[in-house]
């Protein structure tokens, strides 16, 4: 006959075995926390648009000319009327053929590899002070306008879920999507590694007026 203590010990052992067994399996729903999101909940947040094939682009459309007026209202204050960029805000157009230059100008036209990414980014992050306030039609229109500023689409272009994935961006083929690093093969030499006479300072930050203060209150310095 079991006494109570033995009884509890046995059940404890069984419970432990069961726990171990089920933890190892880790079937979906094992913990059972949380809820299943409703279709409406998913739809509200499911905003992503895939860059290379446009999967996720919503219904709606927008033309270059519609985009021009939305851009003037919503974007030009920072990005300039023709996407030239005000102050240090990003330039959106131009820079073609500059990527090998000493001072390259990467813009939507000269750098971005995928057109649907432009829709996705405007839709998820712009305009910066009031994000997620534009309709899909407005976002399509802005996408069309910015592509047109870069001479990638004609004046009568209409952006929608069919037309955007078909655009091949000028810099598309310049991207390599695998990491070639390590691309250096430094050796851990310990003594007489280089000719002491060859050790030359080629650049110094001393006195160039670019460094904010690192003492006292925050420094709001602007470059000289």
């Amino acid at each position, binding site marked *: 006959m079991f006494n109570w203590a033995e009884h509890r010990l046995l059940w404890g052992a069984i419970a432990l075995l069961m726990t171990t067994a089920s933890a190892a399996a880790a079937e979906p729903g094992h913990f059972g926390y949380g809820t299943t999101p409703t279709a409406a909940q998913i739809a509200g947040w499911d905003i992503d648009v895939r860059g290379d094939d446009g999967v996720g682009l919503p219904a709606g459309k927008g033309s270059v000319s519609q985009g021009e007026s939305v851009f003037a209202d919503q974007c030009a204050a920072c990005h300039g009327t023709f996407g030239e960029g005000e102050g240090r805000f990003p330039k959106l157009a131009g820079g073609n053929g500059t990527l090998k230059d000493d001072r390259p100008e990467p813009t939507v036209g000269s*750098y971005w590899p995928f057109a649907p990414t*432009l829709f996705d980014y405007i839709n998820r992050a712009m305009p910066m002070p009031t994000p997620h306030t534009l309709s899909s039609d407005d976002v399509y229109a802005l996408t069309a306008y910015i592509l047109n500023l870069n001479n990638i689409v004609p004046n009568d272009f209409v952006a929608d879920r069919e037309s955007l994935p078909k655009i091949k961006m000028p810099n598309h083929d310049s991207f390599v999507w695998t990491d070639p690093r390590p691309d250096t093969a430094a050796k851990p030499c310990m003594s007489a*590694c280089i000719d*002491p006479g060859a050790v*030359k300072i080629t650049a110094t930050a001393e006195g160039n007026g670019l460094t*904010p203060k690192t003492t*006292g209150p925050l420094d709001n310095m602007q470059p000289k």
Partner: protein
Amino acid sequence: MNKRPQAAKRGNVRPILWRGIRGRNLPVISKLAGQRNVALGRRTVLGLGAALTGSLALGAESAHSETSEMSPPADAPWSQSLGAGVVDRPYGTPAEFEAGVIRRNVPWLTAGTESSISFSPLQSLNGIITPNGLFFERYHAGRPDVDPAQHRLMIHGMVERPLLLTMQDIMRFPSVSRIHFIECPANGGMEWRSAQLNSLQFNHGMISCAEWTGVKLSTLLEEVGLKKEAKWAMVEGADGAHMNRSLPLEKCLDDCLIVYAQNGEALRPEQGYPLRLVVPGWEGNVSIKWLRRIKLGDKPWYSREETSKYTDLMPDGTSRGFTWLIDAKSVITFPCPEKPVSGPGLYEIRGLAWTGNGKVKRVDVSVDGGVNWQTAQLHEPVLSKALTRFTLPWRWDGKPALLESRVIDETGYVQPTIAQLRQQRGTNSVYHNNSIQTWQVKADGSVFDVQLG
């Protein structure tokens, strides 16, 4: 100018500091710094200013030693009074003398502060853990102040069982704690072309390290059940930019964490409160803050942050995408431009090393610009994908010196020079500058950011 006039000035300064403490006058140190800069001018900020930093931030100690009425034989005023009681500061704050130890930004670097970066004051930190209030910040649409009761994490896409989790739900899952660094891959990005910023904080402060507590991403992915076609995860924030990146599934299942705590307390809003992703050893941008959504798919998303940004432009006009790994890097944190040396004698060279590829195996230090090297001592704990401390005693003879550190990680990878990196990548790749930092020590002890040919 030399340092003498300053030493003389210090004498006047001390009583003000003391009045500050008595009157609980917080901005005293800031005011002081302001006065000094007015008096000494801009060049001082770059040169002698560094020496000044030393005396202020190294603290109280050196300052007090010259003060007759507070140092031996006198009994200090704080020894002759009753101090503040418990819960005088219910949430503790640093000593008032440390008021200059703060995150700082480079205002001319970005259009505004909302899509910008601030730097950790590495010159004033010790150990491998970054205090929560000094962890570097990077925002793309400012810092959202998220209500944890309303916050949700949605996991959907190519899964068997889509899930919507509250913070309470997430905290019920089995928890783990891990110490990992997070580094923005643009750390040191301003130095690709030339030596630009004469500062440890501004050249290397886009890195911080903390103990993170949360649930393994693999636990959550097992809970939802992955469909066979699932190969990638899209992770997205609840900030105004809905910052998003793609991650290969292998990394998600390997060591990624969904965390709600940082160094023992809830995440700071600046670091993603109430929930963030931590992707150990990879560029900080993928460690999405204010995490609201994980969607599984069969291909990467090619979001703006992994096409237009966070790709590396090469001299031949091609660009590298998906360069996530943080290669091994190290830097000497003392001496540095903000913490110069003060006359010949014995010093301890101190620094930090890290690698996204596991553990730091060895750090070598050179004081002659890379001609000869000595192996530094690594300090425990040496953890995978965490900051690691190193030190080396150095007797400075008062002659000009060129200090460098070089890390070797457990894969055998050796930290390159900037010249070696430029040979491969030119000067326009912005990200992933993990080159050896050279500090020039001048005969007067001042320290400058330089590059060698």
